[in-house]
């Protein structure tokens, strides 16, 4: 819906008060509040001071710094690092273009992404060069990506109407193209998925899970409401079966049992099996959430559409589904955030995702000399990476939500 409703946003004027007054009102309004405030301030400052001393003083960071590639890409060969770099650059350009076209949320995402890339560029610039020279210097790549994002914004700002459909097509193509690029063209240049790891694998698993489970879950939700008993009971059976078991079981089944059922010559890639398990799992939950959204709609919506002569398919696609998806958007984002974090379970079936990379790092023999090991530093960084992604997702969702609430 491209119509934007520009309304003057008048806010009640907020009385400006000084810092001291603010402190008095909010933290020290009476003796009891003051006591709590003081105790909390002491605790917080203790924690922060401890954190600060640890961050400054620890030798463990060297383990993280010398394993950046393992964290981001797993054992992806260093000569081929340009492939993921190319994809990130493409994504940055698309994000920039989207920001220029649709403004609002895409724009802040694009700006945020380019900003982070720029920041990382400076960090990388200041750091000593890595021991194995990469085809393209990391610093150059980071600055280049930031620049592409900015260029995208600028270009689309001008050519808004012309770029709209190409950009949509670009996003749709990004996923398959990314897989092709990452995997290589076959023969010698093939990079087997057994080498994919770290953040790359985590993103691959969760993006695949989200992208693939979305249509599947919607179909299951619609199927569960179908009047045809065969379809209905199949969907009910599927949903209840999957929701009744933990994801770990599905991952084990996919990795250990699937090969038993298939003929010996059919070997399915371990990553593909993990993607299948994650998708099947996520789809069942998504189906239930979407069904909840469909049920929350007043019956009058369908009746009005029927009275207008729309057929059942049109009613679903134009009336009920869009409304249901909007209604459950916050729940879906919550589900996808959970999925993003749940992909860390693939460690159990021997894949080295972000969490797996952390484990691989702190068990490296060269850090044995460091007192206390390096696991704190490693997990701190990895948790930080998880947090950046999930925080971005939930913030974006909240903004979308408040945008959708316009006119209700």
């Amino acid at each position: 819906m491209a119509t934007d409703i520009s309304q003057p946003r008048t806010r009640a004027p907020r009385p400006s008060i000084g810092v001291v007054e603010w402190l008095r009102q909010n933290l020290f309004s009476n003796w009891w509040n003051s006591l709590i405030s003081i105790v909390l301030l002491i605790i917080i400052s203790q924690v922060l001071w401890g954190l600060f001393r640890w961050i400054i003083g620890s030798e463990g960071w060297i383990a993280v710094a010398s394993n950046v590639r393992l964290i981001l890409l797993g054992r992806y060969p260093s000569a081929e690092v340009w492939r993921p770099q190319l994809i990130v650059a493409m994504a940055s350009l698309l994000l920039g273009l989207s920001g220029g076209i649709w403004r609002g949320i895409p724009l802040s995402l694009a700006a945020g992404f380019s900003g982070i890339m720029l920041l990382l560029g400076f960090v990388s610039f200041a750091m000593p060069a890595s021991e194995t020279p990469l085809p393209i210097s990391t610093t150059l790549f980071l600055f280049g990506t930031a620049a592409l994002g900015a260029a995208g914004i600028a270009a689309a700002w001008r050519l808004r109407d012309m770029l709209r459909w190409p950009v949509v097509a670009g996003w749709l193509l990004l996923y398959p193209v990314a897989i092709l690029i990452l995997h290589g063209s076959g023969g010698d240049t093939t990079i087997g998925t057994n080498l994919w790891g770290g953040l790359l694998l985590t993103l691959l698993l969760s993006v695949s899970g989200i992208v693939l489970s979305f249509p599947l879950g919607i179909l299951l939700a619609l199927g569960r409401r179908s009047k045809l008993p065969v379809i209905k009971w199949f969907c009910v059976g599927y949903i209840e079966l999957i929701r009744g078991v933990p994801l770990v079981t599905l991952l084990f089944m996919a990795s250990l049992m699937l090969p038993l059922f298939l003929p010996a010559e059919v070997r399915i890639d371990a990553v593909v099996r993990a993607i299948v398990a994650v998708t099947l799992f996520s789809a069942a939950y998504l189906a239930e959430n979407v069904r909840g959204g469909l049920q929350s709609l007043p019956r009058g919506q369908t009746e009005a559409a029927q009275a207008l002569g729309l057929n059942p398919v049109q009613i679903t696609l134009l009336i009920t589904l869009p409304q249901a998806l909007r209604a459950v958007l916050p729940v879906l984002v919550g589900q996808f955030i959970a999925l993003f974090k749940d992909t860390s379970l693939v460690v159990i079936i021997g894949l080295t995702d972000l969490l797996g990379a952390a484990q691989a790092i702190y068990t490296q023999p060269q850090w044995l000399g460091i007192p206390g090991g390096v696991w704190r530093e490693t997990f701190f960084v990895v948790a930080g990476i998880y947090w950046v992604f999930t925080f971005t997702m939930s913030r974006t969702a909240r903004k979308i939500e408040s945008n959708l609430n316009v006119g209700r």
Partner: protein
Amino acid sequence: MSNQTTDDIIVCEGVNKWFGEFQALKDVSIRVKKGEVVVICGPSGSGKSTFIRTINRLEEHQEGRIFVDGIEMTNDIRNIDMIRREVGMVFQQFNLFPHLTVLQNVTLAPLWVRKKTRKESEAKAMELLNRVGIVEQALKYPGQLSGGQQQRVAIARALAMEPRIMLFDEPTSALDPEMVKEVLDVMKTLARGGITMLCVTHEMGFAREVADRVVFMDHGMIVEENTPDTFFTNPRHERTKLFLSQIL
């Protein structure tokens, strides 16, 4: 259909309808002529909504026959579709699509059901919105309009399909009193414009002014029908008298 004169656009013969054990319509028969405006009234739960909803198959009847513009209402989807193209409906709760703008609400069916071009449907929609007096709100969402405005959009949305028959189910009951008039005015213009109207309402002023006939229902039956004049001044049945004494 031997016994249908060409003038009758709606014919119901002995319509019976059950919800489980409960019989909501009992032997309902009525003929409505082209261009006629029929007001249906009766106490709550008497089956008024159920009755007009059988005419576009929002409710399925179990016995009796219903013909709309010569098409018999059967289980055949094609018949149902044909009839729904002839019949527009306006609901008590408006039932606008909240995720679409006013303009999109009105153009939806012409685009997807009549397969008109966007340009055509939008031109027609703007004309209709102009007619119901809310053309300035075309790009707003239903949630941004008042109840009276929403109901007028709902009328425009139904008219966009160029129906020959309009069904109204208590179109003003959910409105604040000061908005009732703006909706009734639109309906009156429509009634005088010659479209066939079946209208469940307790707005007796409206009935007096534009109805050709008033039908009184109770306990799923048509108890009495007459011209507004006779109906209000000289009701025949005790139930009708009681009902009129309660609402007038």
